[in-house]
């Protein structure tokens, strides 16, 4: 393994529960230092994909590699190289936060006590409290502390913020940026699955949109926002007949026109401009809007 080995490589992964295919022929690569988003609706196959990376499930077809290693054959090395915040966080309820973190630290070759302390204070957690008495938000916070302290090169987050209140969600993301990302630049890789896309928007470098177990779109985030645009035009007369086949989606309402384009926005704008609209404007779609546009078209 060298620093150029992709932290995650998935090739033609397929996994079915009985006859229900959860993941179908999925391929993606996460490069070192990137924050990679896995977007999809409930049941799109995000969690199954992550479980295959963690060797909680064995791929039925295709293969997954973590830092170049097969998680089934090199379970210890793979688990040592990553940390994971699951969608459902469960701890032994009779243990205190302090005991839980100590217990989890005992499995790790490295554990940063300073970050542990910093995050406990930041989240306002009392280390003596039993984990059985914690709220869902607090359990997720403890899970994040347990994932950041080992200072692994890969952090896997499965729907980390769903079901949490807005303040806890913000604090969670700030802790990921502040505490996890403070390692050597280019050596801290994040894979996050979510359908709460807008909160992670600024963090995501690259993403894959999944639908029914399949990747429907993989793009760089900046490039996606440049390509996907919404164009609005309104005319003095009813909307003239213009060739709009290049648009992904068209909405007409009397004299107003709203288009969503995936690339080729400049030509369409020019074509609309020649029709002398009264108003013409364009803006990029956010990742969440791109997600909706992709799944609805």
């Amino acid at each position: 393994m060298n620093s150029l080995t992709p932290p995650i490589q998935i090739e033609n992964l397929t996994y079915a529960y009985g006859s229900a295919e959860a993941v179908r022929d999925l391929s993606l690569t996460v490069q070192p230092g990137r924050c990679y988003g896995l977007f999809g609706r409930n049941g799109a196959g995000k969690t199954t994909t992550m479980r295959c990376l963690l060797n909680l499930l064995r791929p039925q077809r295709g293969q997954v590699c973590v830092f170049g290693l097969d998680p089934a054959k090199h379970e210890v090395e793979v688990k040592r190289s990553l940390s994971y915040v699951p969608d459902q966080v469960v701890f032994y309820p009779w243990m205190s936060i302090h005991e839980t973190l100590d217990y989890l630290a005992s499995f790790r070759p490295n554990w940063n006590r300073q970050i542990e302390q910093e995050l406990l204070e930041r989240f306002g957690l009392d280390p003596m409290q039993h984990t059985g008495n914690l709220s869902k938000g607090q359990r997720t916070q403890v899970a994040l502390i347990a994932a950041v302290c080992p200072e692994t090169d890969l952090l896997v987050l499965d729907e980390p913020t769903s079901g949490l209140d807005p303040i806890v969600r913000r604090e969670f993301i700030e802790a990921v940026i502040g505490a996890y990302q403070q390692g050597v630049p280019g050596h801290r890789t994040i894979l996050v699955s979510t359908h709460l896309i807008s909160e992670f928007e600024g963090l995501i470098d690259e993403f894959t949109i999944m639908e029914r177990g399949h990747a429907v779109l993989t793009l760089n985030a900046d490039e996606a926002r440049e390509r996907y645009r919404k164009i609005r035009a309104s005319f003095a007369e009813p909307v003239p007949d213009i060739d709009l086949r290049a648009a992904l989606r068209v909405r007409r309402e009397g004299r107003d026109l709203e288009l969503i384009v995936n690339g080729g926005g400049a030509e369409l704008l020019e074509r609309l401009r020649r029709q002398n609209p009264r108003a013409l404007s364009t803006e990029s779609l956010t990742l969440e809007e791109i997600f909706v546009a992709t799944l609805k078209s």
Partner: protein
Amino acid sequence: MLLKINFKSGLPIYLQIVDQIKAVAASGALRPGESLPSIRPLAEELHVNRNTVAKAYSELESLGVIETLPGRGCFLKENHSALRKAVRRKLLTDEIDQAIVQAHHLQVSRDEFLKLVHERLNALDDKRRGHEESKENQKNQEVR
């Protein structure tokens, strides 16, 4: 220094940070020798990837806008362009040409365009004066 990321602008996030810090410097809100926020708090505040802020800062450094002093942070530089005058003029000419093309399409006449340029230059001067005054006042208060 208050920055704001707009995901609907279509501009890469790091470039938005670069542009806004350049604007803050031009307006006099940040002066040569003054320090920029460090990468971690800025990334946390904007909810953007730390690597993105780091990329913006290294871009600003290669443009000669800021300098990094190891262990002390990033600072706004004096007289920041290292480029020859001819090159600087060429860079600006490209930007002006684009604005002129836009003006043509938006049916803004030559006179209106020139008037607008004056207005914007004056607005920037006003901003700079505002920042000068508020800093003078701060100093006076400290003296008292």
